[in-house]
C-alpha cells in the first residue's frame, strides 16, 4: 500500500482552493503553470532509484516501494502496461463536493488549457499534477543503467469521462504497453488511469 498515512480532507480541499485563488489572480494559465511546476519540484525532491532488472522495478512499483508509486496503488497488466485502481485525488474531490458543492469551473478550464498546450491526456486538473509528477520522477529512475520512460494512455475523471490521446498516438502507446484497444477499455472500467512504463531498446 502506498498511502498508508491518511490525509485529512480539510487540507486536501484547502489546496484545491489555493489553486482556485491563484486562478483568480493569475488566470487559467497561472493555475496550470503553478500546478505543473509544483509537481516538477515535488518530483525533484524525491530520492533517485536504480534497479538491476525490469522485473525488480515492476515488483517495487506494484509493492508501493518505488517513488513512482508513492501516492497510488499500481497494478501491472502486461510487461510495460500499468494501471492505477483509484485516482489519488478522488477522496479530495469527493470531500470538496460534499463540503462545498460543485467543483469550480476553473478546474475544467485549466485541464483544457493543459490538454491544448502541453499534452492531451488530462481528465481533471489533478491529472496535470499527477502526470507531471510521473513524467519527472521517471527521469530519476534507472533500470540496468537505462532511463525509465512514462507515457499516459487513458485517464478517467470523477464524472466518468475517459480521456485518451489522439488516434495516431493511442495506437503507438497501446503497442508499447503490449495491450489491445479493447483490453485498454476493459481496464478503464475498473481503473482510473492506464499508462505505459518502458525503457528505450
Amino acid at each position: 500500500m502506498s498511502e498508508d498515512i491518511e490525509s485529512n480532507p480539510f487540507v486536501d480541499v484547502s489546496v484545491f482552493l489555493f489553486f482556485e485563488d491563484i486562478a483568480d489572480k493569475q488566470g487559467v494559465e497561472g493555475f496550470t503553470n503553478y500546478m505543473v511546476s509544483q509537481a516538477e519540484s515535488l518530483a525533484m525532491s524525491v530520492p533517485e532509484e536504480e534497479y538491476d532488472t525490469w522485473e525488480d522495478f515492476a515488483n517495487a512499483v506494484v509493492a508501493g516501494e518505488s517513488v513512482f508509486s508513492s501516492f497510488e496503488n499500481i497494478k501491472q497488466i502486461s510487461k510495460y502496461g500499468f494501471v492505477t485502481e483509484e485516482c489519488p485525488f478522488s477522496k479530495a474531490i469527493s470531500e470538496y463536493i460534499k463540503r462545498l458543492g460543485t467543483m469550480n469551473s476553473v478546474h475544467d478550464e485549466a485541464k483544457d488549457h493543459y490538454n491544448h498546450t502541453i499534452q492531451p491526456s488530462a481528465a481533471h486538473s489533478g491529472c496535470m499534477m499527477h502526470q507531471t509528477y510521473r513524467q519527472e520522477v521517471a527521469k530519476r529512475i534507472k533500470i540496468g543503467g537505462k532511463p525509465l520512460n512514462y507515457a499516459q494512455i487513458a485517464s478517467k475523471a470523477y464524472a466518468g469521462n475517459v480521456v485518451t490521446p489522439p488516434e495516431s498516438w493511442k495506437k503507438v502507446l497501446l503497442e508499447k504497453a503490449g495491450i489491445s484497444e479493447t483490453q485498454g477499455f476493459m481496464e478503464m472500467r475498473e481503473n482510473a488511469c492506464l499508462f505505459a512504463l518502458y525503457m528505450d531498446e
Partner: protein
Amino acid sequence: MMDIALYSLVDDMVSKSGTEGVVEYWLRVGESYAERMGKEAYVGWPAFNVAMKEGRTSLTVEGAVNVLTDLAITDKDGDVIGYVYALKTCPVAPTMSRFIKKIGPIHDSDNDVAENYNSRIRDSAVSNYCITHQKFREVAANNITVSKQGLECLHLANKGRLGDVKMVKENLDRINVDERHIKSILRSASCVFALIVKGKSAGDEED
C-alpha cells in the same frame, strides 16, 4: 496526493510571490473555504456543543474536537457566553508525516511563511498551514449563531510538530483562563480555541 502538493506549492510560490504573498493567499483560502461552508444556527449552547462533539458543524470539518464543558466562559452574572474546545490532531499532521516519509524534510519555506505571518499579523502560527486554518475558524465562527447571537472564535494556543507552543495572551486574558491550564490541555491536543458570543469577554456586565 493533493495535500502533499501543499509543500512543493508553497516552496514554489515563495520563490515567485515571496513569503508575504503566500500569507495573503492562505488568508484568502481560509476565508473563502469558511464562506462556502454556509451559515448555521443552534437554539442554545447544549445543542451547539453536541453538534461539535458529533462533528456536524462547519468548524469540525477540521477533525475531532474535545468540547471542554468544564471550561464554560461566563459573564459577570454567571451566564454562559462561550466554551473552550481542543482539536485533537492538527489537520496537516498526517500530511507532514507522509511528506517526511515519502519525500524528505519539510522545506524551510514552511517556517519562513509562518514567521512572516507571526511577525506581521499575529504570533500564532507554528507552520504555514496554521494561517489558513486559523482564518477558516474565525470566519466560520462568524457564520454561526447560538441562541440568535453571533459567535467569535478566539485562538488560544497551538503546538507544532516538534513541540513548540504558541499562546495568544490577549485572548487568554479576554476569557480569563490561566495559560498553565491551556498548556495542560495541549498535552493531548494540537490546538485550543474558544468560541464566545461576539464582542463579549469573561466577567462582562450583562447588556
